[in-house]
Protein backbone atom coordinates (compact mmCIF):
# COMPACT_ATOMS: atom_id res chain seq x y z
CA UNK A 1 0.00 0.00 0.00
CA UNK A 2 2.75 2.44 0.92
CA UNK A 3 4.82 2.01 -2.23
CA UNK A 4 1.67 2.75 -4.21
CA UNK A 5 1.42 6.17 -2.66
CA UNK A 6 5.09 6.83 -3.33
CA UNK A 7 4.68 6.00 -7.00
CA UNK A 8 1.78 8.39 -7.31
CA UNK A 9 3.46 11.43 -5.81
CA UNK A 10 5.77 12.63 -8.63
CA UNK A 11 3.03 12.43 -11.24
CA UNK A 12 1.10 15.33 -9.78
CA UNK A 13 3.79 17.90 -10.60
CA UNK A 14 4.12 17.86 -14.43
CA UNK A 15 0.39 18.21 -15.13
CA UNK A 16 -0.16 21.66 -16.56
CA UNK A 17 -3.31 23.58 -15.77
CA UNK A 18 -5.76 23.23 -18.65
CA UNK A 19 -6.43 26.33 -20.76
CA UNK A 20 -9.08 28.60 -19.21
CA UNK A 21 -11.70 28.11 -21.94
CA UNK A 22 -11.94 24.38 -21.33
CA UNK A 23 -11.83 24.83 -17.61
CA UNK A 24 -15.39 26.04 -17.09
CA UNK A 25 -16.78 23.14 -19.06
CA UNK A 26 -14.70 20.68 -17.07
CA UNK A 27 -15.60 22.10 -13.69
CA UNK A 28 -19.29 21.83 -14.50
CA UNK A 29 -18.64 18.24 -15.47
CA UNK A 30 -16.60 17.53 -12.40
CA UNK A 31 -19.23 19.06 -10.10
CA UNK A 32 -21.84 16.72 -11.58
CA UNK A 33 -19.28 13.94 -11.54
CA UNK A 34 -18.39 14.34 -7.89
CA UNK A 35 -22.06 14.54 -6.88
CA UNK A 36 -22.63 11.26 -8.73
CA UNK A 37 -19.53 9.82 -7.09
CA UNK A 38 -20.71 10.79 -3.61
CA UNK A 39 -24.14 9.26 -4.27
CA UNK A 40 -22.56 6.07 -5.58
CA UNK A 41 -20.22 5.89 -2.58
CA UNK A 42 -23.21 6.25 -0.26
CA UNK A 43 -24.88 3.36 -2.10
CA UNK A 44 -21.74 1.27 -1.60
CA UNK A 45 -21.70 2.09 2.12
CA UNK A 46 -25.36 1.11 2.37
CA UNK A 47 -24.76 -2.19 0.54
CA UNK A 48 -21.76 -3.05 2.72
CA UNK A 49 -23.01 -1.93 6.11
CA UNK A 50 -26.78 -2.34 6.11
CA UNK A 51 -26.98 -6.10 6.80
CA UNK A 52 -24.55 -5.63 9.71
CA UNK A 53 -26.41 -2.63 11.12
CA UNK A 54 -29.75 -4.34 10.71
CA UNK A 55 -28.64 -7.42 12.59
CA UNK A 56 -27.24 -5.28 15.40
CA UNK A 57 -30.50 -3.33 15.63
CA UNK A 58 -32.64 -6.48 15.59
CA UNK A 59 -30.52 -7.99 18.34
CA UNK A 60 -31.41 -5.12 20.69
CA UNK A 61 -35.11 -5.05 19.87
CA UNK A 62 -37.53 -6.56 22.38
CA UNK A 63 -38.17 -10.15 21.28
CA UNK A 64 -41.75 -9.50 20.08
CA UNK A 65 -40.52 -6.67 17.82
CA UNK A 66 -38.00 -8.74 15.87
CA UNK A 67 -40.07 -8.32 12.73
CA UNK A 68 -40.79 -4.61 13.09
CA UNK A 69 -38.91 -2.43 10.66
CA UNK A 70 -39.02 0.53 13.05
CA UNK A 71 -35.73 2.34 13.49
CA UNK A 72 -36.74 3.85 16.84
CA UNK A 73 -37.42 1.43 19.69
CA UNK A 74 -36.62 0.90 23.33
CA UNK A 75 -33.48 -1.21 23.42
CA UNK A 76 -33.72 -4.44 25.32
CA UNK A 77 -31.25 -7.16 26.27
CA UNK A 78 -33.97 -9.86 26.19
CA UNK A 79 -32.46 -11.65 23.19
CA UNK A 80 -28.99 -11.68 24.70
CA UNK A 81 -30.19 -13.08 28.00
CA UNK A 82 -32.06 -15.79 26.07
CA UNK A 83 -28.95 -16.96 24.19
CA UNK A 84 -26.52 -16.41 27.09
CA UNK A 85 -27.84 -18.71 29.76
CA UNK A 86 -31.54 -18.33 29.04
CA UNK A 87 -34.02 -20.55 27.21
CA UNK A 88 -31.76 -21.27 24.22
CA UNK A 89 -28.40 -21.23 25.90
CA UNK A 90 -25.47 -20.96 23.49
CA UNK A 91 -22.81 -20.21 26.13
CA UNK A 92 -21.32 -23.69 25.70
CA UNK A 93 -20.95 -23.21 21.95
CA UNK A 94 -19.44 -19.77 22.51
CA UNK A 95 -16.83 -21.25 24.85
CA UNK A 96 -16.14 -24.05 22.36
CA UNK A 97 -15.56 -21.50 19.61
CA UNK A 98 -13.12 -19.52 21.78
CA UNK A 99 -11.29 -22.65 22.91
CA UNK A 100 -11.02 -24.22 19.45
CA UNK A 101 -10.00 -20.92 17.85
CA UNK A 102 -7.34 -20.31 20.50
CA UNK A 103 -5.95 -23.85 20.36
CA UNK A 104 -5.82 -23.81 16.56
CA UNK A 105 -3.93 -20.50 16.67
CA UNK A 106 -1.45 -21.56 19.35
CA UNK A 107 -0.56 -24.72 17.42
CA UNK A 108 -0.64 -23.31 13.90
CA UNK A 109 1.41 -20.12 14.32
CA UNK A 110 4.73 -21.65 15.51
CA UNK A 111 4.57 -24.38 12.85
CA UNK A 112 3.85 -21.84 10.15
CA UNK A 113 6.57 -19.45 11.34
CA UNK A 114 9.21 -22.18 11.16
CA UNK A 115 8.08 -23.22 7.68
CA UNK A 116 7.86 -19.60 6.52
CA UNK A 117 11.42 -19.02 7.75
CA UNK A 118 12.66 -22.03 5.80
CA UNK A 119 10.89 -20.94 2.61
CA UNK A 120 12.18 -17.41 2.97
CA UNK A 121 15.81 -18.00 3.96
CA UNK A 122 16.86 -21.25 2.30
CA UNK A 123 17.00 -22.45 -1.28
CA UNK A 124 16.71 -26.22 -1.30
CA UNK A 125 15.61 -29.00 -3.64
CA UNK A 126 11.81 -29.04 -3.67
CA UNK A 127 11.48 -25.38 -2.58
CA UNK A 128 9.21 -24.31 -5.41
CA UNK A 129 7.11 -27.46 -5.60
CA UNK A 130 6.52 -27.52 -1.83
CA UNK A 131 5.46 -23.89 -1.86
CA UNK A 132 3.11 -24.61 -4.75
CA UNK A 133 1.72 -27.65 -2.91
CA UNK A 134 1.00 -25.45 0.10
CA UNK A 135 -0.91 -22.99 -2.06
CA UNK A 136 -2.75 -25.86 -3.75
CA UNK A 137 -4.10 -27.24 -0.45
CA UNK A 138 -6.33 -24.17 -0.25
CA UNK A 139 -8.35 -25.55 -3.16
CA UNK A 140 -9.26 -28.88 -1.55
CA UNK A 141 -13.01 -29.09 -0.94
CA UNK A 142 -13.94 -29.39 2.73
CA UNK A 143 -16.00 -32.57 2.26
CA UNK A 144 -12.98 -34.45 0.92
CA UNK A 145 -11.25 -33.68 4.23
CA UNK A 146 -14.23 -34.01 6.55
CA UNK A 147 -15.50 -37.41 5.31
CA UNK A 148 -12.33 -39.45 5.95
CA UNK A 149 -11.91 -37.75 9.32
CA UNK A 150 -15.53 -38.54 10.14
CA UNK A 151 -14.84 -42.27 9.78
CA UNK A 152 -11.38 -42.06 11.38
CA UNK A 153 -12.57 -40.10 14.41
CA UNK A 154 -15.55 -42.43 14.78
CA UNK A 155 -13.26 -45.40 15.19
CA UNK A 156 -10.97 -43.43 17.53
CA UNK A 157 -13.89 -42.14 19.60
CA UNK A 158 -12.90 -38.54 18.89
CA UNK A 159 -16.18 -37.40 17.33
CA UNK A 160 -17.60 -34.34 19.08
CA UNK A 161 -14.33 -33.44 20.81
CA UNK A 162 -12.42 -30.16 20.67
CA UNK A 163 -9.27 -32.04 19.64
CA UNK A 164 -10.96 -33.37 16.48
CA UNK A 165 -11.94 -29.88 15.34
CA UNK A 166 -8.54 -28.38 16.14
CA UNK A 167 -6.78 -31.09 14.10
CA UNK A 168 -9.03 -30.60 11.09
CA UNK A 169 -8.80 -26.80 11.29
CA UNK A 170 -5.03 -27.09 10.84
CA UNK A 171 -5.68 -28.26 7.25
CA UNK A 172 -6.83 -24.78 6.24
CA UNK A 173 -5.03 -22.58 8.77
CA UNK A 174 -1.43 -23.82 8.55
CA UNK A 175 -1.02 -23.45 4.75
CA UNK A 176 -2.75 -20.06 4.72
CA UNK A 177 -0.64 -18.44 7.43
CA UNK A 178 2.58 -20.09 6.23
CA UNK A 179 2.14 -18.14 3.05
CA UNK A 180 1.23 -14.98 4.94
CA UNK A 181 4.24 -15.25 7.28
CA UNK A 182 6.62 -15.98 4.41
CA UNK A 183 5.83 -12.50 3.12
CA UNK A 184 6.67 -10.99 6.50
CA UNK A 185 9.94 -12.91 6.91
CA UNK A 186 10.91 -11.99 3.33
CA UNK A 187 10.75 -8.34 4.31
CA UNK A 188 13.10 -8.72 7.32
CA UNK A 189 16.72 -7.69 6.60
CA UNK A 190 19.10 -10.67 6.54
CA UNK A 191 21.93 -8.53 7.99
CA UNK A 192 20.56 -8.69 11.53
CA UNK A 193 20.58 -12.48 11.39
CA UNK A 194 24.13 -12.54 10.05
CA UNK A 195 25.26 -10.23 12.83
CA UNK A 196 23.57 -12.42 15.43
CA UNK A 197 25.21 -15.52 13.95
CA UNK A 198 28.68 -13.92 14.07
CA UNK A 199 28.03 -13.15 17.73
CA UNK A 200 27.63 -16.88 18.19
CA UNK A 201 23.87 -17.07 18.26
CA UNK A 202 22.65 -20.62 17.62
CA UNK A 203 19.71 -21.43 15.36
CA UNK A 204 17.17 -21.95 18.14
CA UNK A 205 17.96 -18.72 19.94
CA UNK A 206 18.17 -16.92 16.58
CA UNK A 207 14.59 -17.94 15.82
CA UNK A 208 13.37 -17.17 19.33
CA UNK A 209 15.36 -14.04 20.18
CA UNK A 210 15.76 -12.41 16.76
CA UNK A 211 13.17 -13.60 14.26
CA UNK A 212 10.18 -13.85 16.57
CA UNK A 213 10.41 -10.26 17.91
CA UNK A 214 11.14 -8.86 14.45
CA UNK A 215 8.24 -10.75 12.89
CA UNK A 216 5.91 -9.85 15.76
CA UNK A 217 3.54 -7.78 13.56
CA UNK A 218 3.31 -10.67 11.11
CA UNK A 219 2.76 -13.12 13.94
CA UNK A 220 -0.06 -10.95 15.24
CA UNK A 221 -1.69 -10.76 11.80
CA UNK A 222 -1.44 -14.51 11.25
CA UNK A 223 -2.76 -15.22 14.74
CA UNK A 224 -5.78 -13.06 13.91
CA UNK A 225 -6.31 -14.93 10.64
CA UNK A 226 -5.96 -18.32 12.36
CA UNK A 227 -8.55 -17.41 14.91
CA UNK A 228 -10.88 -15.91 12.31
CA UNK A 229 -10.69 -18.93 9.99
CA UNK A 230 -11.29 -21.35 12.86
CA UNK A 231 -14.10 -19.21 14.31
CA UNK A 232 -16.04 -18.90 11.03
CA UNK A 233 -15.56 -22.54 10.01
CA UNK A 234 -18.88 -24.30 9.49
CA UNK A 235 -18.38 -27.44 7.42
CA UNK A 236 -15.97 -29.22 9.79
CA UNK A 237 -18.01 -28.78 12.98
CA UNK A 238 -21.13 -29.77 11.03
CA UNK A 239 -19.52 -33.11 10.19
CA UNK A 240 -17.48 -33.73 13.31
CA UNK A 241 -19.46 -32.39 16.27
CA UNK A 242 -22.86 -33.22 17.75
CA UNK A 243 -23.34 -31.10 20.87
CA UNK A 244 -20.38 -31.16 23.27
CA UNK A 245 -17.89 -29.53 20.89
CA UNK A 246 -20.31 -27.62 18.65
CA UNK A 247 -19.09 -24.16 17.68
CA UNK A 248 -21.17 -21.00 17.62
CA UNK A 249 -21.89 -20.77 13.84
CA UNK A 250 -23.23 -24.35 13.88
CA UNK A 251 -25.17 -23.76 17.11
CA UNK A 252 -27.12 -21.03 15.27
CA UNK A 253 -29.00 -23.93 13.68
CA UNK A 254 -30.58 -24.70 17.06
CA UNK A 255 -32.48 -21.41 16.80
CA UNK A 256 -34.32 -22.80 13.77
CA UNK A 257 -37.32 -24.16 15.62
CA UNK A 258 -40.17 -26.25 14.24
CA UNK A 259 -42.49 -23.22 14.55
CA UNK A 260 -40.01 -20.99 12.70
CA UNK A 261 -36.73 -19.21 13.27
CA UNK A 262 -36.33 -17.29 16.54
CA UNK A 263 -35.06 -14.24 14.68
CA UNK A 264 -34.50 -11.96 17.67
CA UNK A 265 -32.28 -14.54 19.34
CA UNK A 266 -30.67 -15.34 16.00
CA UNK A 267 -29.69 -11.69 15.64
CA UNK A 268 -28.25 -11.57 19.18
CA UNK A 269 -26.30 -14.79 18.63
CA UNK A 270 -25.32 -13.52 15.19
CA UNK A 271 -23.90 -10.38 16.74
CA UNK A 272 -21.81 -12.55 19.08
CA UNK A 273 -20.50 -14.48 16.05
CA UNK A 274 -19.90 -11.35 14.01
CA UNK A 275 -18.71 -8.55 16.31
CA UNK A 276 -15.32 -9.96 17.39
CA UNK A 277 -14.53 -10.87 13.77
CA UNK A 278 -15.43 -7.39 12.52
CA UNK A 279 -12.98 -5.87 15.00
CA UNK A 280 -10.26 -8.37 14.07
CA UNK A 281 -10.81 -7.96 10.34
CA UNK A 282 -10.62 -4.19 10.68
CA UNK A 283 -7.28 -4.49 12.50
CA UNK A 284 -5.69 -6.62 9.76
CA UNK A 285 -7.65 -5.26 6.78
CA UNK A 286 -4.51 -4.42 4.77
CA UNK A 287 -3.49 -8.09 4.73
CA UNK A 288 -6.70 -9.67 3.43
CA UNK A 289 -5.91 -9.10 -0.23
CA UNK A 290 -2.29 -10.29 0.14
CA UNK A 291 -3.29 -13.53 1.83
CA UNK A 292 -6.16 -14.34 -0.50
CA UNK A 293 -4.25 -13.82 -3.72
CA UNK A 294 -0.98 -15.27 -2.44
CA UNK A 295 0.82 -12.05 -3.19
CA UNK A 296 -0.43 -11.54 -6.74
CA UNK A 297 -1.86 -8.22 -5.59
CA UNK A 298 0.37 -5.92 -3.64
Amino acid sequence: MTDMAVKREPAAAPVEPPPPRRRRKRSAWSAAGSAARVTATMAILFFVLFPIVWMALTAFKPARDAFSTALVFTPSLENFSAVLGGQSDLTGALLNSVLIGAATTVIAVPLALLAAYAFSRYRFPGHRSMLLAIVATQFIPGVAIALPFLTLFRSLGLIDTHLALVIVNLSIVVPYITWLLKGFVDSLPVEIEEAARIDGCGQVSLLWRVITPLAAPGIFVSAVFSFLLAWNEFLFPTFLSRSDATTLPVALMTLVLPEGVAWGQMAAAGLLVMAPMLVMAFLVRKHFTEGMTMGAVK
Partner: protein
Amino acid sequence: MVASTVPPPRRRSGWRRRAAPYAHLAPALLAIGLTTVYPLVSALITSFRHWRLNETREPGEFVGLEQYERAFTDGTFYNSAWVTLEFTVISVVLSVGLGLGIALILNNRTRLSAFTKALLILPFAVAPALKGFSWRFMLNPDTGVYDKMVDTVLPFFDDINWLGDPFWALMVLALTEVWGWAPLIALMLLGGLGSISPEVREAAKLDGASPWQEFWRVTFPLLRPLLLVVVFLKAVFSVKIFDQVVTTTGGGPGRATESMNFFAYSQGFTFLDIGYASAVSWVIVLVLGVLAALYLIAMARQEAK
Protein backbone atom coordinates in the same frame (compact mmCIF):
# COMPACT_ATOMS: atom_id res chain seq x y z
CA MET B 1 46.00 -19.94 6.50
CA VAL B 2 46.70 -16.84 8.55
CA ALA B 3 44.61 -16.67 11.67
CA SER B 4 42.29 -13.68 11.57
CA THR B 5 41.39 -11.65 14.64
CA VAL B 6 37.66 -12.18 14.15
CA PRO B 7 36.65 -15.72 15.08
CA PRO B 8 35.27 -17.49 12.03
CA PRO B 9 31.50 -18.18 12.05
CA ARG B 10 30.73 -21.67 13.17
CA ARG B 11 30.80 -23.88 10.11
CA ARG B 12 28.37 -26.71 10.13
CA SER B 13 29.06 -29.92 8.33
CA GLY B 14 27.55 -30.30 4.86
CA TRP B 15 24.71 -32.66 5.64
CA ARG B 16 23.57 -30.56 8.58
CA ARG B 17 23.42 -27.46 6.40
CA ARG B 18 21.48 -29.34 3.76
CA ALA B 19 19.10 -30.77 6.32
CA ALA B 20 18.42 -27.42 8.00
CA PRO B 21 15.53 -26.25 5.78
CA TYR B 22 13.78 -29.60 6.03
CA ALA B 23 14.14 -29.59 9.81
CA HIS B 24 12.33 -26.23 9.90
CA LEU B 25 9.67 -27.45 7.50
CA ALA B 26 9.03 -30.81 9.11
CA PRO B 27 6.43 -29.82 11.75
CA ALA B 28 4.30 -27.79 9.32
CA LEU B 29 4.59 -30.36 6.53
CA LEU B 30 3.64 -33.09 8.95
CA ALA B 31 0.56 -31.15 10.07
CA ILE B 32 -0.46 -30.27 6.51
CA GLY B 33 0.22 -33.78 5.24
CA LEU B 34 -1.74 -35.38 8.04
CA THR B 35 -4.73 -33.09 7.58
CA THR B 36 -4.85 -32.84 3.77
CA VAL B 37 -2.88 -35.61 2.04
CA TYR B 38 -4.06 -38.35 4.38
CA PRO B 39 -7.80 -37.57 3.96
CA LEU B 40 -7.46 -37.11 0.18
CA VAL B 41 -5.78 -40.50 -0.22
CA SER B 42 -8.17 -42.12 2.21
CA ALA B 43 -11.19 -40.69 0.35
CA LEU B 44 -9.76 -41.91 -2.96
CA ILE B 45 -9.38 -45.45 -1.64
CA THR B 46 -12.84 -45.39 -0.06
CA SER B 47 -14.33 -44.16 -3.35
CA PHE B 48 -13.47 -47.56 -4.89
CA ARG B 49 -15.26 -49.44 -2.11
CA HIS B 50 -18.74 -50.24 -0.99
CA TRP B 51 -19.29 -48.73 2.46
CA ARG B 52 -22.52 -47.79 4.15
CA LEU B 53 -22.03 -46.81 7.76
CA ASN B 54 -25.52 -48.00 8.67
CA GLU B 55 -24.65 -51.52 7.44
CA THR B 56 -21.03 -52.01 8.55
CA ARG B 57 -18.62 -50.19 10.77
CA GLU B 58 -15.70 -51.33 8.63
CA PRO B 59 -15.28 -50.48 4.94
CA GLY B 60 -16.67 -53.13 2.58
CA GLU B 61 -15.34 -54.78 -0.57
CA PHE B 62 -13.65 -53.01 -3.46
CA VAL B 63 -16.06 -52.37 -6.31
CA GLY B 64 -13.77 -50.66 -8.82
CA LEU B 65 -15.30 -47.66 -10.51
CA GLU B 66 -18.86 -48.57 -9.57
CA GLN B 67 -19.38 -45.51 -7.32
CA TYR B 68 -18.20 -43.20 -10.12
CA GLU B 69 -20.45 -44.93 -12.66
CA ARG B 70 -23.28 -44.47 -10.22
CA ALA B 71 -22.54 -40.74 -9.93
CA PHE B 72 -22.53 -40.27 -13.68
CA THR B 73 -25.88 -42.02 -14.07
CA ASP B 74 -27.44 -40.28 -11.05
CA GLY B 75 -29.82 -37.49 -12.02
CA THR B 76 -29.56 -35.86 -8.61
CA PHE B 77 -25.76 -35.73 -8.93
CA TYR B 78 -26.09 -34.09 -12.35
CA ASN B 79 -28.54 -31.68 -10.82
CA SER B 80 -26.01 -30.70 -8.14
CA ALA B 81 -23.31 -30.24 -10.78
CA TRP B 82 -25.63 -28.01 -12.80
CA VAL B 83 -26.67 -26.01 -9.72
CA THR B 84 -23.01 -25.51 -8.81
CA LEU B 85 -22.20 -24.34 -12.32
CA GLU B 86 -25.13 -21.89 -12.37
CA PHE B 87 -24.25 -20.62 -8.91
CA THR B 88 -20.59 -20.20 -9.85
CA VAL B 89 -21.35 -18.26 -13.03
CA ILE B 90 -23.89 -16.01 -11.30
CA SER B 91 -21.74 -15.27 -8.28
CA VAL B 92 -18.53 -14.76 -10.27
CA VAL B 93 -20.21 -12.35 -12.70
CA LEU B 94 -21.96 -10.40 -9.94
CA SER B 95 -19.00 -10.33 -7.54
CA VAL B 96 -16.40 -9.32 -10.10
CA GLY B 97 -18.73 -6.90 -11.90
CA LEU B 98 -19.84 -5.19 -8.73
CA GLY B 99 -16.32 -5.32 -7.30
CA LEU B 100 -14.95 -3.58 -10.37
CA GLY B 101 -17.69 -0.94 -10.15
CA ILE B 102 -16.93 -0.28 -6.48
CA ALA B 103 -13.20 -0.08 -7.22
CA LEU B 104 -13.67 2.45 -10.02
CA ILE B 105 -15.96 4.61 -7.88
CA LEU B 106 -13.57 4.60 -4.93
CA ASN B 107 -10.38 5.04 -6.96
CA ASN B 108 -9.68 8.58 -5.74
CA ARG B 109 -8.21 10.20 -2.70
CA THR B 110 -11.19 11.90 -1.11
CA ARG B 111 -11.83 11.36 2.58
CA LEU B 112 -15.18 9.70 1.91
CA SER B 113 -13.51 7.12 -0.34
CA ALA B 114 -10.77 6.47 2.20
CA PHE B 115 -13.42 5.95 4.89
CA THR B 116 -15.41 3.59 2.65
CA LYS B 117 -12.31 1.61 1.66
CA ALA B 118 -11.48 1.02 5.31
CA LEU B 119 -14.92 -0.54 5.87
CA LEU B 120 -15.01 -2.68 2.71
CA ILE B 121 -13.51 -5.73 4.39
CA LEU B 122 -16.23 -6.05 7.03
CA PRO B 123 -18.77 -8.26 5.17
CA PHE B 124 -16.06 -10.76 4.29
CA ALA B 125 -15.33 -11.29 7.99
CA VAL B 126 -18.92 -12.33 8.74
CA ALA B 127 -19.19 -16.12 9.04
CA PRO B 128 -20.70 -17.44 5.77
CA ALA B 129 -23.23 -19.49 7.74
CA LEU B 130 -24.41 -16.30 9.41
CA LYS B 131 -24.57 -14.46 6.08
CA GLY B 132 -27.09 -17.06 5.03
CA PHE B 133 -29.29 -16.47 8.06
CA SER B 134 -28.93 -12.70 7.79
CA TRP B 135 -30.14 -12.53 4.18
CA ARG B 136 -32.83 -15.11 4.83
CA PHE B 137 -34.11 -12.83 7.59
CA MET B 138 -34.00 -9.65 5.52
CA LEU B 139 -35.72 -11.29 2.55
CA ASN B 140 -38.50 -12.91 4.56
CA PRO B 141 -41.48 -12.39 2.22
CA ASP B 142 -43.78 -11.18 5.03
CA THR B 143 -41.56 -9.24 7.34
CA GLY B 144 -38.05 -8.89 5.85
CA VAL B 145 -36.70 -5.37 5.62
CA TYR B 146 -35.18 -5.86 2.14
CA ASP B 147 -38.37 -7.51 0.94
CA LYS B 148 -40.29 -4.41 2.05
CA MET B 149 -37.84 -2.10 0.30
CA VAL B 150 -38.07 -4.09 -2.93
CA ASP B 151 -41.87 -4.18 -2.72
CA THR B 152 -41.99 -0.39 -2.26
CA VAL B 153 -39.75 0.33 -5.23
CA LEU B 154 -40.97 -2.47 -7.48
CA PRO B 155 -44.58 -3.25 -6.44
CA PHE B 156 -44.95 -6.02 -9.02
CA PHE B 157 -42.29 -7.99 -7.09
CA ASP B 158 -44.65 -8.11 -4.12
CA ASP B 159 -45.64 -11.73 -4.66
CA ILE B 160 -42.15 -13.15 -4.78
CA ASN B 161 -41.36 -15.68 -2.11
CA TRP B 162 -37.60 -15.35 -2.44
CA LEU B 163 -36.58 -18.71 -1.04
CA GLY B 164 -39.66 -20.57 -2.32
CA ASP B 165 -38.87 -19.91 -5.96
CA PRO B 166 -36.07 -22.00 -7.57
CA PHE B 167 -34.62 -19.08 -9.53
CA TRP B 168 -34.73 -16.51 -6.74
CA ALA B 169 -33.49 -18.98 -4.14
CA LEU B 170 -30.34 -19.45 -6.18
CA MET B 171 -30.06 -15.67 -6.62
CA VAL B 172 -30.37 -15.10 -2.87
CA LEU B 173 -27.70 -17.71 -2.29
CA ALA B 174 -25.46 -15.90 -4.77
CA LEU B 175 -26.26 -12.59 -3.06
CA THR B 176 -25.06 -13.85 0.33
CA GLU B 177 -21.78 -14.64 -1.40
CA VAL B 178 -21.59 -11.43 -3.45
CA TRP B 179 -22.10 -9.32 -0.32
CA GLY B 180 -18.81 -10.58 1.13
CA TRP B 181 -16.83 -10.98 -2.07
CA ALA B 182 -17.63 -7.89 -4.15
CA PRO B 183 -16.07 -5.51 -1.58
CA LEU B 184 -13.04 -7.79 -1.15
CA ILE B 185 -12.57 -7.97 -4.94
CA ALA B 186 -12.90 -4.18 -5.04
CA LEU B 187 -10.00 -3.93 -2.58
CA MET B 188 -7.88 -6.27 -4.73
CA LEU B 189 -8.69 -4.29 -7.88
CA LEU B 190 -7.99 -0.98 -6.13
CA GLY B 191 -4.49 -2.34 -5.52
CA GLY B 192 -4.22 -2.99 -9.26
CA LEU B 193 -5.68 0.39 -10.22
CA GLY B 194 -3.17 2.09 -7.92
CA SER B 195 -0.29 0.55 -9.81
CA ILE B 196 -1.49 1.94 -13.17
CA SER B 197 0.59 5.05 -13.66
CA PRO B 198 -1.54 8.21 -13.61
CA GLU B 199 0.49 9.59 -16.57
CA VAL B 200 -1.01 6.93 -18.84
CA ARG B 201 -4.55 7.87 -17.93
CA GLU B 202 -3.73 11.58 -18.02
CA ALA B 203 -2.27 11.13 -21.51
CA ALA B 204 -5.47 9.43 -22.67
CA LYS B 205 -7.51 12.29 -21.21
CA LEU B 206 -5.37 14.91 -22.96
CA ASP B 207 -5.82 13.05 -26.23
CA GLY B 208 -9.53 13.70 -25.78
CA ALA B 209 -10.61 10.25 -24.64
CA SER B 210 -13.97 10.14 -22.87
CA PRO B 211 -14.01 8.39 -19.48
CA TRP B 212 -15.72 5.45 -21.23
CA GLN B 213 -12.97 5.19 -23.86
CA GLU B 214 -10.30 5.70 -21.25
CA PHE B 215 -11.67 2.75 -19.26
CA TRP B 216 -11.96 0.31 -22.16
CA ARG B 217 -8.81 1.33 -24.00
CA VAL B 218 -6.44 2.05 -21.11
CA THR B 219 -7.58 0.85 -17.69
CA PHE B 220 -9.27 -2.41 -18.64
CA PRO B 221 -6.41 -3.86 -20.73
CA LEU B 222 -3.93 -3.05 -17.94
CA LEU B 223 -6.22 -4.58 -15.34
CA ARG B 224 -7.07 -7.71 -17.33
CA PRO B 225 -4.40 -10.08 -15.92
CA LEU B 226 -5.48 -9.19 -12.38
CA LEU B 227 -9.16 -9.58 -13.28
CA LEU B 228 -8.40 -13.07 -14.52
CA VAL B 229 -6.76 -13.96 -11.19
CA VAL B 230 -9.80 -12.65 -9.34
CA VAL B 231 -12.26 -14.52 -11.57
CA PHE B 232 -10.56 -17.88 -10.99
CA LEU B 233 -10.17 -17.23 -7.27
CA LYS B 234 -13.86 -16.45 -6.94
CA ALA B 235 -14.79 -19.45 -9.11
CA VAL B 236 -12.83 -21.81 -6.85
CA PHE B 237 -14.58 -20.54 -3.74
CA SER B 238 -17.98 -20.62 -5.47
CA VAL B 239 -17.59 -24.28 -6.43
CA LYS B 240 -16.91 -24.99 -2.74
CA ILE B 241 -20.19 -23.35 -1.62
CA PHE B 242 -21.67 -25.18 1.34
CA ASP B 243 -22.34 -23.10 4.47
CA GLN B 244 -25.03 -20.82 3.09
CA VAL B 245 -26.79 -23.69 1.34
CA VAL B 246 -27.35 -25.23 4.76
CA THR B 247 -28.39 -22.04 6.54
CA THR B 248 -30.35 -20.29 3.78
CA THR B 249 -32.18 -22.88 1.70
CA GLY B 250 -31.23 -26.35 2.92
CA GLY B 251 -30.84 -27.24 -0.76
CA GLY B 252 -34.45 -26.34 -1.55
CA PRO B 253 -36.96 -25.63 -2.88
CA GLY B 254 -36.82 -29.25 -4.04
CA ARG B 255 -33.20 -29.65 -5.10
CA ALA B 256 -32.95 -26.23 -6.74
CA THR B 257 -29.99 -25.06 -4.63
CA GLU B 258 -28.27 -28.35 -3.89
CA SER B 259 -24.58 -27.71 -4.61
CA MET B 260 -22.07 -30.52 -5.16
CA ASN B 261 -20.57 -30.09 -1.71
CA PHE B 262 -24.04 -30.20 -0.19
CA PHE B 263 -24.88 -33.30 -2.25
CA ALA B 264 -21.74 -35.08 -1.02
CA TYR B 265 -22.62 -34.01 2.52
CA SER B 266 -26.13 -35.40 2.35
CA GLN B 267 -24.94 -38.69 0.81
CA GLY B 268 -22.23 -39.17 3.40
CA PHE B 269 -23.63 -37.57 6.50
CA THR B 270 -27.38 -38.00 6.17
CA PHE B 271 -27.57 -41.24 4.17
CA LEU B 272 -24.26 -42.59 5.61
CA ASP B 273 -23.18 -43.86 2.17
CA ILE B 274 -19.48 -43.15 2.69
CA GLY B 275 -18.34 -44.93 -0.48
CA TYR B 276 -20.57 -42.93 -2.79
CA ALA B 277 -19.94 -39.65 -0.97
CA SER B 278 -16.18 -40.20 -1.28
CA ALA B 279 -16.50 -40.71 -5.03
CA VAL B 280 -18.55 -37.52 -5.33
CA SER B 281 -16.05 -35.58 -3.24
CA TRP B 282 -13.25 -36.77 -5.51
CA VAL B 283 -15.14 -35.52 -8.54
CA ILE B 284 -15.21 -32.13 -6.78
CA VAL B 285 -11.48 -32.42 -6.06
CA LEU B 286 -10.83 -32.93 -9.79
CA VAL B 287 -13.04 -30.01 -10.83
CA LEU B 288 -11.27 -27.75 -8.34
CA GLY B 289 -7.90 -29.11 -9.44
CA VAL B 290 -8.54 -27.85 -12.96
CA LEU B 291 -9.70 -24.45 -11.67
CA ALA B 292 -6.72 -24.24 -9.32
CA ALA B 293 -4.33 -24.92 -12.19
CA LEU B 294 -5.95 -22.15 -14.24
CA TYR B 295 -5.73 -19.85 -11.22
CA LEU B 296 -2.03 -20.56 -10.68
CA ILE B 297 -1.29 -19.96 -14.36
CA ALA B 298 -3.17 -16.66 -14.25
CA MET B 299 -1.28 -15.72 -11.11
CA ALA B 300 2.11 -16.56 -12.63
CA ARG B 301 1.27 -14.28 -15.57
CA GLN B 302 0.18 -11.48 -13.26
CA GLU B 303 3.45 -11.78 -11.32
CA ALA B 304 5.49 -11.84 -14.50
CA LYS B 305 3.90 -8.54 -15.58
